[in-house]
């Protein structure tokens, strides 16, 4: 799942791979408030789960966001 989210960030958000790590925050990734909404929308579309921009912003770190996507996917 982490690798899938990582490729989503490199392909759709044009973030270079070397900037992406499990403990990267949205700020580290250069995702501002509107981009975080786009990220939430892309996660929903890409993984077929419901995830709000508030959740993405509150979790802040990539590994925690990936964990939530995994949990939602298992629950669905």
């Amino acid at each position, binding site marked *: 799942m982490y690798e899938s989210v990582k490729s989503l960030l490199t392909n759709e958000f044009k973030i270079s791979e070397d900037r992406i790590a499990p403990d990267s925050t949205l700020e580290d990734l250069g995702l*501002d408030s509107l981009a975080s909404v786009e990220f939430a929308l892309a996660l929903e579309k890409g993984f077929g789960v419901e995830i709000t921009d508030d959740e993405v912003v509150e979790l802040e770190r990539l590994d925690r966001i990936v964990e939530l996507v995994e949990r939602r996917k298992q629950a669905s």
Partner: protein
Amino acid sequence: MDHNRTRAAVLAGVAGWVPPGTVTNADLEARLDTTDDWIRSRTGIAERHTVPPGMATRELAVEAGRLALKSAGRDDVDAVVLATATPDRLCPATAPEVAAALGLGPVAAHDVAAVCAGFLYALSAGVGAIAAGFADRVLVIGAETFSAIVDPQDRNTAVIFGDAAGAVVLRAGDPDEPGAIGPIRLGSDGTHSDLIQIPAGGARQRAARTVPEPSDHHLQMQGRKVYRHAKERMAQSAREVIERSGWTVEDVDRLATHQANARISEAVADELGVPRDRVLSNIEHVGNTSAASLPLLLADSAAAGRLRTNDRVLLAAFGGGLAWGAASLTWPDVTALAVHTYRG
């Protein structure tokens, strides 16, 4: 419904008017915790404009209305529809005063309140009046004095909104001629009415007899949530209009979205698959002017040669309510008048 219409409303005149006060990003840097780079990268806005003392929505509407009538080459209409979220008073409507100030006589005149989607709602009222046969010519205006409702210390809204007006003249005509307003789709979702609001001053707060916070008299907006709804709703209604117009996405020569934020406009274009070079924009120089945004964008774009006769134009807007909509038309041979007074 659309295919049964034999009498169409045709765009016969278009104009925009921007007031003289200028607030640049540098001006905002001086009084808010913000920077030019922050504002530009998040909104695409470099400057916005404000009314001088003594001017408000009526005067803005009159200036744009007068120019639109001049653009149409006739100064008589049967009705005036004014889209505004900033009427001069809560009661009565501002449109009758606008009609009187323009010397239009005792014509039908009313306001439409749909915030940033207001122009498309007002346009639909004008189209409806003509299609139903109780008007032959309608002046549709969007005019806003957001400087009166925005908290100058709120960096989330103060950087975005500006004052302006835009207007179009509709006349009865043939559905197949250039300028005929095509399918219109409108929608709303009142379960999210709190995302863009002025909490105080209306009947709800007054009836509750509560003492509002000073900030409750100002516009409050939850930007991230609005962005998400805006993108999805505008894209969906735009798709429906494309289909009802008998077009494909490739047929769209120009996409004119409400100028809320350059990134929302680009996101909607990307979502629809409309190339970015077909997207009209003037937000850099005027900011978000709510109901004035679309007619001002059309006037500015046509005056600058970015919008030409026979271009197939897709319009989309979204705002407080929530309310949104989309419409299409083929651009007519019309002389657009766009006056930006601050340019002297």
